[in-house]
């Protein structure tokens, strides 16, 4: 986290910092990090955070989703991991986590943890383009930033076309539908983060601790 913030301070230009979820996890105590995100130091960038898959698990387990509990996590990773997760986060942070948004829409960019369908959905280079297009359409954006897969990629959907013919009681109608250029961007995880330049539509995949030069906006997942 510190490395990451130092890095961004050195990056010139106007930077908005987005944190695409999974701020917490079962591996280590998360309280200091959460405290810093909620109360940034005077020279920190103000982080814009959304909730991720681990936040969803702790909210489920802590009764923020009605009667549901984090059963999928319990079945897949065991009771120990569920306990570690609840121990890693002080209860005083839960209301803040519960108030986090599912995603942000900025200009024509959507920023989410998994996908616009599900916080746990992995979007990767191997996801069928039709699925990617659907996830973009659901948010009505042209750029979708995702973190869940932990991968860094910039996949452009440069052109799409499909012919539709509808027959109903009023007769037949044909239509050719095209899609404008769109993109899905995997921003990476941990030390890897992504800088995005809104002006040029270019991405830069960065590892915290390495030098960067451009005037860009940063989207990171911690």
């Amino acid at each position, binding site marked *: 986290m510190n490395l990451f913030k130092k890095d961004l301070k050195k990056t010139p230009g106007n930077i908005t910092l987005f944190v695409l979820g999974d701020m917490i996890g079962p591996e280590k105590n998360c309280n200091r990090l959460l405290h810093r995100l909620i109360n940034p130091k005077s020279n920190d960038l103000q982080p814009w955070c959304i909730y991720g898959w681990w936040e969803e698990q702790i909210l489920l387990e802590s009764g923020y989703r009605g009667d549901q509990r984090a059963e999928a996590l319990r079945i897949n990773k065991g009771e120990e991991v569920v306990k570690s997760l609840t121990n890693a986060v002080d209860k005083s942070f839960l209301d803040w986590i519960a108030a986090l948004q599912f995603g942000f829409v900025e200009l024509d960019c959507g920023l989410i943890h998994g996908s616009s369908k599900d916080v746990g959905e992995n979007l990767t280079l191997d996801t069928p383009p039709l699925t990617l297009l659907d996830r973009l359409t659901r948010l009505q954006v042209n750029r979708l930033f995702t973190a869940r897969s932990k991968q860094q990629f*910039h*996949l452009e959907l440069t052109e799409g076309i499909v012919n539709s013919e509808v027959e*109903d*009681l009023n007769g037949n109608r044909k*239509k050719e539908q095209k899609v404008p250029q769109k993109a899905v961007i995997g921003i990476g995880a941990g030390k890897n983060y992504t800088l995005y330049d809104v002006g040029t539509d270019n991405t830069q995949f960065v590892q915290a601790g390495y030098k960067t030069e451009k005037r860009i906006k940063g989207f990171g997942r911690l």
Partner: protein
Amino acid sequence: MNQAVISCLHANLPAVEAVLKDIELQGITNITCLGDLVGYGPQPNKVIELIRDKEIPTCQGCWDEDVVDGLDACDCSYPSQLAEKRGHFAHQWTTDKLTTENKDYLANLPYSIRKDKCLFVHGSPNSQHEYLLPDMDAFAALERVENARAEILFCGHTHQPYIRELADGSIAVKIKNAVPKDTQEKEIQLPMRRIVNAGSVGEPRHGGTKATYVVYNDVTNEVKIREVEYDIELTCKAIIDAGLPPIFAWRLKNGFEFAEQAEDASHVCER
């Protein structure tokens, strides 16, 4: 072989009987029902019992789910607040009238039925409450069929029958900023897929008054929309006698139900 697909019976017994007769007259024995056996109409138990007697494979519709699980739909289920109020009234009336046995039957209906390359659902593969409208985004429509691993998707719920073919599709992709630096480009061909909406037997919303359903020939792949007349007066009288909102009878008689459709075709049900 011809098969019939029916949907949205909505407790309208005269309409269901007329449609089943029409199917029988064509010598069709293979029938699939896409749910919404109840709701709006005055004969919920009789309609369920008829479908059960004939052992017609049926998916669970949005009304079938709601009378069992309680109302829990996202806003998209009703086009207006007034429609919502009337819908809630009909929901309560139906819940009160249904026998325990028939409620159990609705509760245990499958969400979807798969037969070879065909998938049968009520709303969409995502939800009983999602509308697949005839002119929705073509890529999103294709995604629903493709991700359900089907070639033909049969749905209902909109109460408007249609056949939609999505063909000759492609998406070109380019990997930008790749490591190693070489940009990769490729074009993915999209498969031809179809969405067939069976319309509604008991609550048409196509502007007319006739009951609709579809006949699918699994050899020639042809789909035909069928319109069937039934004794509307009989249903209307039963609606009034049952104490259901008179507008339910009025719109059946005038074919005005189409005035109340979900407005936002791009809305994705978040339920």
